[in-house]
């Protein structure tokens, strides 16, 4: 009985409780990433997975009696900034994709024989200016 109580108390210590929560968030994000098709939701799922990783890291750093590990906290700070950069870039890509194709879900990869491949080394594609201005005139054949 005492052993059981000890196990429960040990499990509920922040140093174990939060890593467990982080593992759950990681798995939850993975689940969402597979299940949801809208790209914005997929990006949210990846962010939730990332938060799970940070929770494990900070939880592990807070284990034990002494002050928490500053290296782990510095790594987490770095990780958060990396995550927001990747998210910002991913969102810009999604907006651009939606502008080109009209939907923000994953498209099939170019089927081998009919996908148009832009060749930026050729002159005639640039009659209308830079790559930016091509957005409205290009579309993927359905």
């Amino acid at each position, binding site marked *: 009985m005492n052993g059981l109580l000890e196990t429960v108390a040990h499990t509920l210590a922040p140093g174990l409780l939060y890593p467990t929560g982080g593992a759950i968030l990681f798995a939850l994000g993975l689940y969402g990433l597979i299940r949801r098709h809208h790209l914005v939701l997929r990006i949210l*799922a990846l962010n*939730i997975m990332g938060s799970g990783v940070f929770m494990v890291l*900070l939880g592990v*750093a807070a284990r034990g009696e002494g002050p928490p590990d500053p290296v*782990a906290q510095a790594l987490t700070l770095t990780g958060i*900034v990396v995550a927001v950069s990747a998210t910002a870039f991913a969102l*810009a890509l999604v907006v*651009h994709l939606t502008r080109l194709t009209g939907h923000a879900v994953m498209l099939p990869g170019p089927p081998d024989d009919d996908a148009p491949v832009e060749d930026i080394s050729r002159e005639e594609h640039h009659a209308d200016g830079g790559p930016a201005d091509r957005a409205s005139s290009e579309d993927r054949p359905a």
Partner: protein
Amino acid sequence: MNGLLVLFDLVLLAGIVGVAWRCLASTDLFRAVVLFITFGLLLALAWVRLEAPDIALAEAAIGAGITGALLLVTLERLRSIMAERRSGRPHSPPPDPTGPHALLRALHDPLPEHRTFLPALTFALVVGGLLVTALWHQPQSVGLEPVVDAHMDVSGVDHPITAVLLNFRAYDTFLELAIVLIALLGAWSLGRHDLIPARPAPGPILPGTLRLLVPVAVVTGVYVLWAGSHAPGGAFQAGAILGAAGILLVLARPRQLPMAPGGPLRLGISAGVALFLLVGLYGLAAGHGFLGYAEAWAYPLIILIEVAATLSIALTLVALFVAGRPAGDDA
């Protein structure tokens, strides 16, 4: 008291997991984004419980604040693109999952959502279960706290996290700045920016508040930057606060974004990385090693790098919010 704290931890974690679940299960994108911002704020509370006030500050400012603003403006952009398409030419249908190469495409592409339930659930349960098992079997490691503590007196600053970020592991921090910059270069390479499709709010309230808030945000940003050398705070949190002020300014006049001149803007976004690199190379030449400082110079150099980094981060975050490159950049 301890029991109450455990109860608080449990409630907080249940809330975090529950909000994350509702966010991913939501069919309405706007709702999902709002839940995600809530998720970020709850995480900040968890970080406070884990004795990580720096991370809590960063999570609230960057994880919830800036990411939330980016997500909301993305939704607004998607909505206006869709509206434009609906009024213009016909909407091209989403990809057809059946067709000549259906089986082959199934290998490439996500299955329909209803068919992924069991595989996804099993996969997530297995990964989560294994992770939890591994974590529960871990012995307590000492970590690097004693090592950092022993070197604090030669680090040039009084706050251990700043010491790690800008002295002991400055290389990581330098690359982190580079990643923010690369994300912006990537977003800029996609095309020129368009006006932000926000509905301008008429009336004097928003401009009035901004007149009050932006100076306060600037002061707060500078304070957080300065505090970073001895207390929670630092370049990234300060950059996020200043960036948020910039985003507010952009939002207040969505129809008339300023024409940013190309050259100075490029210099501004790369100033943090450039200065950091210069200091690093100087360290190499002076014999302290790449990204090393002479002990006496550590504090002023760290502050110098942090100031440049804060400005670059703030500028880059605003530019990422505006997304495409400004017309001035092509000149």
